[in-house]
């Protein structure tokens, strides 16, 4: 395709004599935008970062890569115009061509960066099993009609499940995954030292604490479970 290119006397690619090249580039540009979105969604949904499981964030990231590609193409165009001492003016066809090249460039940047930064955890099955254990423990706690003092084993099971999750998440290559692991460790450390009555007020859905410390621990637990729901159900 590169062999088909012709250059005008001003130094730029002559788009008038290569219409098929322009059309092909446009098709590739659109395909690049679609592929960028698909790759970003696949990478995000397989990661341990809760933020990368929100579609809004993924759309912003995909758009960001495309915009970076287009901006770098535009900067190159303006720099080239400056060097050739040509006015930086482009017609509609040239703008379309530039956008297509920029989109392709954005997709190539994503491909390059994803080789180093993609979260590809190999312990997904272990994580799923630990999350299931935590959900099971919480369901049993909620369903139980016994007083908290008789639910010690269930609270221990909840703690153990969360510790297993933390061990999986600590291997995450994303900040969000590692931060979730740290949050879980800190929460479990405090929770494990509480008596059963306080533990019930923190995790039991039908109870609600009045005290500030227990309320904060309950909110943190809800935050942790919400983030776990995000990273464990999308895959």
């Amino acid at each position, binding site marked *: 395709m590169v062999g088909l290119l012709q250059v005008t006397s001003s130094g730029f690619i002559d788009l008038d004599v290569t219409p098929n090249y322009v059309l092909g580039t446009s098709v590739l540009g659109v395909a690049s935008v679609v592929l960028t979105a698909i790759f970003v969604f696949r990478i995000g949904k397989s990661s341990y970062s809760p933020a990368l499981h929100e579609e809004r964030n993924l759309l912003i990231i995909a758009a960001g890569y495309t915009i970076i590609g287009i901006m770098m193409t535009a900067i190159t165009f303006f720099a080239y115009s400056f060097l050739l001492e040509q006015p930086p003016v482009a017609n509609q066809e040239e703008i379309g061509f530039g956008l297509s090249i920029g989109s392709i460039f954005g997709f190539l940047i994503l491909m390059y960066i994803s080789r180093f930064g993609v979260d590809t955890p190999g312990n997904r099955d272990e994580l799923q099993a630990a999350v299931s254990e935590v959900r099971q423990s919480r369901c049993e706690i909620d369903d139980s009609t016994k007083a908290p003092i008789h639910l010690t084993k269930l609270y221990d099971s909840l703690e153990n499940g969360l510790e297993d999750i933390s061990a999986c998440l600590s291997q995450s290559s994303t900040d969000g995954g590692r931060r979730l692991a740290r949050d879980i460790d800190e929460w479990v450390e405090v929770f494990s030292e509480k008596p059963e009555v306080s533990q019930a007020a923190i995790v039991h859905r039908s109870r609600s604490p*009045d005290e500030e410390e227990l309320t904060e621990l309950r909110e943190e637990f809800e935050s942790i479970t919400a983030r776990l729901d995000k990273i464990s159900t999308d895959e």
Partner: protein
Amino acid sequence: MNEPKTKQDVWPHTETVIFLTDSEKCFGNSIRDVMSEISDCEHLSNSGHHQGNELSANFLRFGSERIEDSDEIVPNSLIFVHCDLVLDTKMYDHIKGNTIPGSSEVVVLIEDSNHSDPEERILNLTRSVEIAQSLDDVKDEARRYFKRICPKCRGDPAKGWVLDWKKAVYYRVEN
């Protein structure tokens, strides 16, 4: 509940203080504010002489619906209970009988009662209970109780006291 055998099994200790009342208020203050004021007690402060103290506390409010299940009440060693939830309720039986360990502190809040002269009826109980008629009484009772179980103030006997209390709870809930 795991069986407590040694002091290491029960220390560091987190005390659970419960307010048994159907009201959101205690002597005109919100329960949350009262909890906050009590938690400012020097024995829980973790500062000055009490730096590194192994004693902490959590505060919970239970409504009258929890009175029926004694296992909800027994594991809490400092119990503030509204006078109307003592008289003619299951709580009366808990206090009069042997349900609640003798070393647990029961403080009856005398305010806005539906009964005439609740204090006299409560003082006729065979078990020793304390009476609180103001927020200051509540804070004083809490401070006195925390001092009794504060390792920084009372040393090893405080730790032993909590171990004995936990054993008494274990005996009641697991037998």
